[in-house]
């Protein structure tokens, strides 16, 4: 598999010099295609202090097909589905937007950026997006509460 070499390389790079607030590991050492990502809530956002766990899975056709990113930790966010799956909608991960030259590093940084600045125009959870637009205070409150409940280790 040609993709394994690339994935191993990206993994090594990310382990060696992880971007701010992000750390990665393999779910299972023998499987390069399933990653577990720890993401700290960015400062200044209602997710601050939270340790969010994301699942990143790579298709065997990677890098020709985009990876998928989902939140294993529940999060109150307009761009993340509010269910068990926690699927995330990233523009750059859409099949027609994806470029093989994009790296996982960029994907994860983009995801973290999305925590700092949600994109209500590109939302999956319309209700949260509306609240984000119209009632920011309440949104911040709920998001902070969810972070406390789900993402902060006791």
């Amino acid at each position, binding site marked *: 598999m*040609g993709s394994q*070499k*690339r994935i191993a*390389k*990206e993994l090594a790079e990310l382990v060696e010099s992880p971007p701010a607030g992000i750390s990665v590991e393999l779910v299972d050492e023998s499987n390069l295609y399933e990653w577990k990502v720890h993401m700290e809530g960015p400062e200044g956002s209602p997710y601050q202090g939270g340790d969010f766990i994301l699942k990143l899975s790579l298709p065997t056709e990677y890098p*020709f097909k985009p990876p998928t990113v989902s939140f294993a930790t529940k999060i109150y966010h307009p761009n993340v589905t509010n269910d068990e799956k926690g699927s995330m909608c990233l523009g750059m991960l859409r*099949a027609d937007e994806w*470029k*093989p*030259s994009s790296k996982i590093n960029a994907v994860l940084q983009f995801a973290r950026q999305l925590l700092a600045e949600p994109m209500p125009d590109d939302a999956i959870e319309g209700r949260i997006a509306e609240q984000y637009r119209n009632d920011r205070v309440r949104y911040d409150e709920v998001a902070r509460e969810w972070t406390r409940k789900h993402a902060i280790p006791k």
Partner: protein
Amino acid sequence: MSTSTATASASIADPPRPGRLRRFSQLRAYTQNLSHSSPSQRARPSLSSRVPWLSTPSGAESPSTQVESSTPLCPEGDQPPEFLYRILAINSPNEPSQTTHVMARLRSASAVQGRPPRNLARTATPEAPTSLPEPTTATNDTLELTGTISAEIQSPSKLPQKATIRFFPYQDSYQSSRPSLPFIPISRTLPSESCVIRVGRYSERDGIPNPNPSEPSDSPVGFKSKVVSRKHCEFMYVNGQWHIKDVGSSSGTFLNHMRLSQPNMVSRLYSIKDGDIVQLGIDFRGGEEMIFRCVRIRIECNRAWQQQPNEFNKNTESLIKNLGKGETADYSGCRECSICLGSVLRPYQCLFMAACAHVWHYKCISRLLHSPDYPMFQCPNCRAFTDLSAEVDDSNDQEGEKSQESVGAEEGNQAALRSEAQSPANAPPESEGHETSNQLEAHPEEPDLATDVENLHLQDEQAREADTESSDSAALNGSNDDLARSATVNLPGWQPTEPLNVPTRHAQLRADTPGSDENPLTPRNDSGPLAFDGRAGMP
């Protein structure tokens, strides 16, 4: 202008020799080629240093295009469309006269020099034959002369940047819709800014259109589909920005899925940018038959800077020149293959370089080359489109050779070979002269280089043994005719995933092109009993 170089090659031509010996001979061939190419390139005085307009456009243009795209010059919605017509009206009195004047001067200049004006013929016209005889630029004096002449002639006119637009077929594969009408890529360069490119149904009366004219042209673009109206839409260039307008089509013009106007109504101008999708009409009767299919076009515009010498492709050129120069070579600027993230532009690797000068390992990129879209290739780095089946553009090589700005040393060498092989009338004495002189120059250097490379090779070998996928027998074979062959023909060793699909699709594409010989809609009278070429009644 698709100067895609497939540096991948297989050792077909080589007689089987015992391993190391064979490798050494390959190395010899390799180093010889390299030492051929580099002195010839270096010996030539760089035109760009003397002629300022040759080197400037890349740097000067790219920011301006960005500015244009970020600030929409077209009134979007708020202002009435009359505004633009006013602009057009204001522009038209002075503009055409000025540009035609320049054009006339350019033409006379090209007549004097006996070669096409290069900046006008920059239209990425792969199939444009260099109709004018090339002058033999055997000596540097003549070269200098032509250089200064063209500089003198063009510098006062401040080098008008001609507006170029290209249309590529677009298949909406992600929404799994039906295939749209196939056509071969079309390019147009406006002779003057006030010209308009009319798009409509293909008509016999327009004559047989040339999809890629070498000269600037605003000839109409025709598509063989019943869902395209005779007058469907128009493309125009206003204030440095391309626009589209529906001119009252019945089945609609769609810009990125948005219909521009009601049926039979003229729309306002919409600005378009590189990568936009324009659809003409809607599939009729399910699009089962070819002539009822809609046309989907991917627009390419404002990419001229990429087709000229710029920082990036000149850097690539120098890196390629360094290939195989042994341990002394400088790989510090070496780029990575965006697919495997390994380093490219090292010796002993099969590479593929697209027209945009992005380079990958052939193995890594092959999946994107031999896709269902086959003749079309989209660069995964910059999304530039290339027609891989396009004819090799010789005129560009000449330019590259002269101004030392061709994409790579191999390119230049290939150009010499190609011009010898394809058009014997095309300055054979020049290339032959260079061939011999290069050989003379090259020989003293050769042993050193060969040993250098041999050392390097020994080190590499250990590393390579670990790499199971490496095809080291093929990697070395940098001989030029292999390169030329692999650039045009299917690459040996490629396992076709869809052995039947790709070629037929390709044939189909060619067949449905306006202007191609086997035209399904315009049957030729060459098989019936009245054919006059002696084939009458032949099966």
